[in-house]
């Protein structure tokens, strides 16, 4: 290839497209991030006047910004519970599906079907079913189930991919070396597929944490955070909304960073552990 070859015109077209894409992706996020530092007298739009942390304080004060603290106090345990349930069920199902059994493919497609089902429809369905059964909808019961219907297909698909690459010789070696089934699971299989399990946890947590459509009619009288934010857009007209967006985005990034960081650490450790 010639070193100083002229770039084809397509390069400039694609570069422009990509730049627009990046601006579209990060522009709003960065604008909201900047505007969340708006001063007490500033409005919902630029310019930024007298920047500070005023609206972050207002978030947790008893202003008329809605029950952000309470909503966060429900969303976090819900996301953690969904994460744990997703991991446990996905790993167990992944192990079961390594052996073909009667009806396994039907079961597999049934589990995936909820990916295709629109979230709002599912939300209505759960509400109707709970009313029919005479059960109250709550964030820890009906919303928990609704979120699982969304996170489990992802968890299952990841675990199937991870476990299908797991060499059965590891389990045979463990059996050969006198490990019980439980020891094989806890000391061999789970540690080997730990990066995959972390990935499933990340999906379980983040998908539940910011889930709106499936929470819409299923959280009951007490809102989760995404519902609370939606409600606030109709009632709150202060930059507190932006401050809230910044805080929740930071929490999401922390979760992703924690997950990717630990996967990276595990893989680094397996390759490069220092010798004496």
């Amino acid at each position, binding site marked *: 290839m010639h070193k100083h070859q002229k770039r084809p015109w397509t390069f400039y077209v694609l570069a422009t497209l990509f730049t627009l894409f990046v601006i579209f992706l990060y522009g709003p996020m960065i604008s909201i991030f900047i505007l969340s530092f708006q001063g007490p007298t500033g409005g919902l739009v630029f310019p930024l006047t007298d920047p500070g942390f005023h609206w972050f304080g207002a978030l947790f004060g008893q202003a008329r910004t809605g029950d952000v603290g309470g909503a966060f106090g429900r969303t976090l345990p819900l996301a953690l519970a969904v994460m744990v349930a997703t991991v446990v069920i996905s790993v167990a199902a992944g192990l079961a599906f390594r052996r073909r059994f009667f009806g396994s493919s039907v079961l597999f497609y049934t589990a995936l079907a909820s990916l295709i089902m629109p979230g709002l429809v599912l939300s209505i369905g759960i509400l109707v079913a709970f009313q029919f059964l005479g059960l109250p909808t709550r964030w820890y019961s009906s919303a928990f189930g609704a979120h699982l219907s969304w996170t489990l297909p992802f968890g299952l698909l990841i675990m199937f991919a991870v476990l299908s690459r797991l060499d059965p010789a590891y389990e045979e070696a463990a059996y*050969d070396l006198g490990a019980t089934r439980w020891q094989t699971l806890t000391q061999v299989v789970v540690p080997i597929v730990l990066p995959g399990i972390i990935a499933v946890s990340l999906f379980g947590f983040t998908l539940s944490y910011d889930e709106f459509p499936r929470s819409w009619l299923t959280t009951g009288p007490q809102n989760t955070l995404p519902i609370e934010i939606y409600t606030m857009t109709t009632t709150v007209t202060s930059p507190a909304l932006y401050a809230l967006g910044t805080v929740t985005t930071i929490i999401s990034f922390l979760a992703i960073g924690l997950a990717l960081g630990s996967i990276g650490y595990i893989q680094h450790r397996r*390759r490069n552990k220092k010798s004496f």
Partner: protein
Amino acid sequence: MVHSGVVSLQGVTKSFGSLTAVDDIDLTIDGGSYCCLLGPSGCGKTTILRMIAGHETPTSGEIQISGVSVLGQTPVQRGTAMMFQSYALFPHLTVLDNVAFRLKMQGMAKRERRAKAHETLEKVQLNHLAERMPAQLSGGQQQRVALARAVITNPQVLLLDEPLSALDEFLRLQMRGELRRMQRELGITFIHVTHTQLEAIAVADLVVVMDDGHIVQASAPEDVYARPTSAYVARFMGGQNVLRGVVQSVVGPTVTLRSDQGQIFEVDSAQISAAAGDIVHLSIRRDHTELEKSDAVPTQPNHVVGKVIAIEYQGTYVKVTLDAPDNREFVSHVPDDKYLAQRVDVGDQVVVSWRAADVHILADDHRKSESGPDLELAS
């Protein structure tokens, strides 16, 4: 009292659905010996290994170790240990913790099991890598870790599934010597599955040649190589030319055979009790032949004539291949000095002859004339 480490299979069959992988096998492997199960892929050798190890259950038959039936027992109860083809070293554990794994499962305290693991790693000269992770080791080092992990509790029988197949040529030769040394040092029974003929005869006391779920020959390496009992073994082991003829006459010490192409072979009658009409397979070692460039067809028996189709220099000898008249290749190994004195070229007409005393009869393929139509064996 049965010697410890004797492995005996009696009428063992293993079927997977409609496929019979191992068909009614009887085999006894002496305690403290090195046995190689040899055969092409799919012949059932790995299935036998896995049944002895306790990773597969025979469909029928009996397996005993040291005179005790082991069916239904775990590998630990059997006193076996297996080395896997992929080594199956646990990627999340250090070399030391991999080696100590079996002791950990037994519930041995950390300090004690680590000391024992260091001791075992010393035997394979890898103690300096004890804190490394498996992914940081070379193939040969991983293999030695797998060996150390398998032998840490002094099993009676060590089972090795294609242990050298993942290594390059140079390491393979080095490691097979090391396996043999280890076996002598530990004094336990080694059962080693391989599809490489030279590997099997280099290390084993007993070579078990398999084909399609059956044992076709189980004997000392020199017997399997130089005195095969069937055309299959002769061809599979290599180093032999296999010929076939119908007995024409038995006169005194000489049995005269005639091939389908009209060649005449003479065999010493001490090797065979044959009658006219019998079909006999015989083998001649490639290095027990004389090659001569000649257009004339000799009048004496025990020769083949043909055109040279390939010449390969092998260092101490030259491998000359001719297209024998029955369309099977016939190979002659010519010592290098002799070849250099009388070169041949591809396309030359040559005569390859041998002494009647160097002919070996493949006894299992001897068909008596009254036994009906001849069954041509698969090559």
